[in-house]
């Protein structure tokens, strides 16, 4: 989308021009011709920035009012102090069970990356096959329908049984839970490739490889990336639960550890960190998806 918006006004002005006229037109485009700087629209700026700020302020105000006289639940100020201390040294190491929050987050991200990466490696090609061939679709769809709604934690014992170790079991759980959105979205995308494009493929008698790379893949890309986005979201949801059960270094384990220490301020910090990282992952993939939009 971004590129489309960038290109169309420039190229529209070139329409119908002959090539000799085109060269100078191009060069003025290529030169860093600074567009007249539009004055900053402050009213629009506040209209966008103010509401979210008010939202956060309200949350903190309600939280502060509710915890004013509480002895167990920390106030916003206490959590802020704890956070300042925590983020001052996020990468310390005092033995396997006491490491900085940075290490915890990175360890969780590594597990998510591994589990999700494997899921993508298996799920996307499988989605293509299921979407392309009706037989495979009929064969796989009851299995998918059956396995998809299973809670992540139900898969964990299977992983522990097979891998006999906590870390691979957590990765396995991520894998099995994040494979479905990618697989299903890819398959749906393949099935929804416009008939026009498939007719083109048939009329040109393209090989199955050319069909896959030139027609299916670009056409499916938006669906696929939606699947990837959902999968990463799921993976990040699942990791906290999985790590609570398996232990080791990771944000989920950290939450559980702090609960055992009755350090509620740290749990609240963890919640914000988990939310923030999730947001970051989502944003990353959304901006990636935008590169594949063509109108």
């Amino acid at each position: 989308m971004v590129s489309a918006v960038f290109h169309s006004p420039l190229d529209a002005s070139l329409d119908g021009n002959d090539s000799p006229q085109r060269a100078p037109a191009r060069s003025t485009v290529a030169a860093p011709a600074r567009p007249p700087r539009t004055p900053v629209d402050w009213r629009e700026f506040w209209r966008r920035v103010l509401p979210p700020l008010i939202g956060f302020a309200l949350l903190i105000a309600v939280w502060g009012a509710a915890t004013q006289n509480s002895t167990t639940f920390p106030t916003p100020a206490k959590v802020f102090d704890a956070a300042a201390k925590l983020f001052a040294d996020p990468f310390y190491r005092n033995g396997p069970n006491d490491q900085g929050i940075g290490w915890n987050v990175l360890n969780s991200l590594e597990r998510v990356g591994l589990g999700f990466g494997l899921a993508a490696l298996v799920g996307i090609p499988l989605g293509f096959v299921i979407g392309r061939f009706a037989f495979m679709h009929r064969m796989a769809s009851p299995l998918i329908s059956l396995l998809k709604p299973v809670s992540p934690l139900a898969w964990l014992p299977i992983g522990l049984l097979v891998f006999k170790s906590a870390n691979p079991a957590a990765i396995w759980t991520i894998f099995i839970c994040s494979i479905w959105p990618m697989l299903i979205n890819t398959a749906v995308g393949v099935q929804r490739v416009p008939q026009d494009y498939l007719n083109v493929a048939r009329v040109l008698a393209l090989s199955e490889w050319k069909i896959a790379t030139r027609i299916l893949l670009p056409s499916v890309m938006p669906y696929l990336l939606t699947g990837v986005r959902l999968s990463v979201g799921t993976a990040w949801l699942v990791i906290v639960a999985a790590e609570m059960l398996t232990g080791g270094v990771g944000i989920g384990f950290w939450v559980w550890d702090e609960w055992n220490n009755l350090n509620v301020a740290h749990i609240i910090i963890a919640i914000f960190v988990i939310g923030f990282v999730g947001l970051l992952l989502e944003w990353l993939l959304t901006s990636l998806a935008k590169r594949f939009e063509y109108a």
Partner: protein
Amino acid sequence: MARHDKPMLSIAGVGMTFPTKRGPFVALRDVSLDMQRGEFVALIGHSGCGKSTLLNLVAGLTTPTAGHLLLDDRELKGPGPDRGVVFQNHSLLPWLSCLDNVLLAVERVFGATESKEQLRQRAMATLELVGMSHALAKRPHEISGGMKQRVGIARALAMQPKMLLMDEPFGALDALTRAKLQDELMKIVATTGATVMMVTHDVDEAVLLSDRIVMMTNGPAATIGEVLRVDLPRPRNRVELAEDSRYVHYRKEVIDFLYTRHQHVEKVA
């Protein structure tokens, strides 16, 4: 235009029945038509008369339930690059540039025998033929509807097909763009000697472009009603033809068929 050698395309007793939930639907019955090399044939009829169905049969996108289609004495089985198809909605791939859209077709046909550079030259030459050299690198959404259809024509022509099959290629364009593209199509056909089958519902387009106009009866169970031979000298000029008595006569013939003799067939049947 009358030629006496063997027909290039031979449609013999072709019928097409689609299975539907309410039982079989007969779209076409007993269609027989021969086309000579270099001939321009327009299929005209009211919507739903099966003219696109017939074109799809020739394209090989569907298989007839009765009869045979022969192209150069070989039975048509499925689509192939010997028949270039121009779709009504252009059907260019939006993620490829104009050049790459054409290259896709060129690579398929000549990829095994020619170098990358030769393929490129071939694609560019065809785009030049349709007057689109200025937009090689543009994506389809960056060019106008008329330009898209030019690229669509280039894609079909670039394969050097035996036949060009056009399914209402200018139907979605405004009248002025359509006229311009019709004129250019006439030029292209004159230079390449292409054999063209074109589906249209535009009487003027049919008379202006065709050597023969195949008029189809209304569906269901549509078939060829009449075939009109258009004996107008080429090159044809739309402005001069507008007052030509033969042109007016041919036009009247088609209109007569469409609106007098075959308007209410559905209700009668």
